[in-house]
């Protein structure tokens, strides 16, 4: 699913160079539930951005579902993000003026799917996360846990093979957090590949495997 070999990312600010990733090797198989842990400044966010195709590496190779995406342009990556990756953010990042329904529909709008197909998919996803009755509510009318479930439904709209979650429970109380993690677990059991960033070992315990990053390099799997 994900195969990174000697991946490097160098930031240049004027004449100063900063090496955020110093040759990362990471392999995630289809159907795995992996936690990524690491202290701040370890290159964790940079790695997530590259995995999510929001950023491009400056060296090495990155194969996503067998395709090398390290050399693609931004707009080419837009398509990859749309179809291959589902994002779940710590702060939900829902559109405030749009209803739960419209938020889930968003990725499909950029793919030009027809209205009946969109409607069916949105209804299906909202039912799955248990928010079908809330479909006409705006994010401000929903609890944090409900907002995150809408965000998960949105991430799954295009049925991407991999789900990327960046501290998905960071803004939630523990009960809502557990619900979200249970949802992830059931998604994983249904065959979805999940990569989750966290700094909490208790949360990482939900996953099947935990990888650590430190100073731009992967540490051995635990």
């Amino acid at each position, binding site marked *: 699913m994900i195969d990174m070999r000697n991946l490097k990312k160098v930031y240049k600010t004027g004449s100063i160079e900063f090496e955020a990733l110093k040759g990362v090797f990471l392999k995630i198989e289809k159907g795995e539930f992996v936690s990524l842990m690491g202290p701040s400044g370890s290159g964790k966010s940079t790695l997530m951005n590259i995995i999510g195709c929001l950023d491009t590496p400056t060296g090495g190779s990155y194969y996503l579902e067998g395709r090398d995406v390290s050399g693609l342009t931004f707009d080419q990556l837009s398509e990859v*993000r*749309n179809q291959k990756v589902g994002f779940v953010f710590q*702060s939900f990042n829902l559109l405030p*003026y749009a209803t739960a329904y419209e938020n889930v529909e968003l990725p499909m*709008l*950029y793919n030009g799917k027809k209205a009946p197909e969109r409607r069916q998919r949105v209804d299906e996803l909202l039912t799955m996360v248990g928010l079908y009755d809330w479909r006409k509510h705006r994010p401000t009318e929903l609890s944090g846990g409900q907002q995150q479930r809408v965000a998960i439904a949105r991430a799954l709209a295009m049925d991407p093979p991999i789900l990327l979650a960046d501290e998905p429970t960071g803004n939630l109380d523990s009960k809502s957090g557990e619900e979200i993690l249970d949802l992830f677990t059931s998604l994983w059991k249904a065959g979805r590949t999940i990569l989750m960033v966290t700094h909490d070992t208790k949360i990482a315990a939900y996953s099947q495997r935990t990888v650590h990053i430190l100073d731009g390099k992967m540490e051995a799997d635990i």
Partner: protein
Amino acid sequence: MIFIFFKNLFMDLYRQPLRTFLTLSGVVWGTFASVLLLAFGDGVSKSGKKSMHGMGEGIVIAWPGTTTISYKGITKGKAVRLTAEDVLLVKEKVPDILRISPEYIRSRRIRYNKEEYNNNIRGVNVEYQYMRNTIAQKGRFIDDPDVKNRRRVCFLGNTIAQNLFKDEDPLEKKVYVEGVPFMVVGVMVKKIQNSNYSGQRDEHCLFIPYTTFSTLYGQKYVSNVIIQPFPGQSVPVVANIREYLGNKIGFSPKDADALFIWDFTDLEKSLDIFFLAFNIFLGMIGSFTLMVGGVGVASIMLVVVEERLREIGVKLAVGAKRKQILRQFFSEALIIILMGGLIGFAFAALVLGVIPMEKIEDYVGHPQINVMVGIVTILILLAVGSIAGLMPARKAASTNPIEALRSR
């Protein structure tokens, strides 16, 4: 997509009423000013031309003067005099003249019952009405039998007719000119005329057959001559008239003061150019006003982009392409500007509908929104909108999604 886009746009406009009002007001005011300026410019040019046609359409006026060049042994300073017969012969001798009329002008006391005015009497022939646009609203102009038989009939300017007769019907009534009765055969239709080449404007004048005039007042020589050359022929016609009359009466064809000529067709051409420049000037003022409104929209939209960075980031993250973001913000700016334009247009139409046109018609004509005004305004709006929309849209499209998603 379209639906969510409009919903987004109107929600945004609705949630920030003050900002929306301020943004729109610049464009509304700019459009309002542009439309009014263009409409008035158009009205003024049309009334300018009309008013010119009030004096005459494609005519040349000739005044006999005094020679300033010695000619065939006669020293300069000789008064040039033309009789009505000379004038009528010109049409036969000089080619390319469509119409010609001698004109005698004097001020006389004109009376009907107890109303008396000291106004211009003009002795003219039948063709005069077509050259000077003295069209009959009631009755008729002077006709051939009137001229031939030296009848004491008169055609009244609309204002003098109104002043003398009030609500009475002037036709067939007798007005007294220095005690001599004249029967009214017609009244002129109201026309726009701001000035006249000599004497009062036509609406104040009384027109009689030139034959009657010269017999009654013993005046042999005409005051001036009105000539209508075939279209485009005024220059050769003027030269040929000078040549012919110079030979006949005795002045040099090169002597401009012996026969002073005013070529209206020339004037009309320069008037056309003047009004074109005038309208372009007004259009520019209008578009500058509108541009200020456009700058307002652009700056507000830049702020909006800043406020909605996170939204842009989310859209990019779920697969929006940069050009889709560009299109979204560009059309938002364009729609705001077109909306403002529509409101401004409606206001201008309202104001033009409310203005009492009769009171201003003599000065600025009839300002109205015609096809030209509409097309020019829409073009200006589109130009301003495109420029104002492109800047924020480019900024939005160049958003870095990583930073946008991290922003709080």
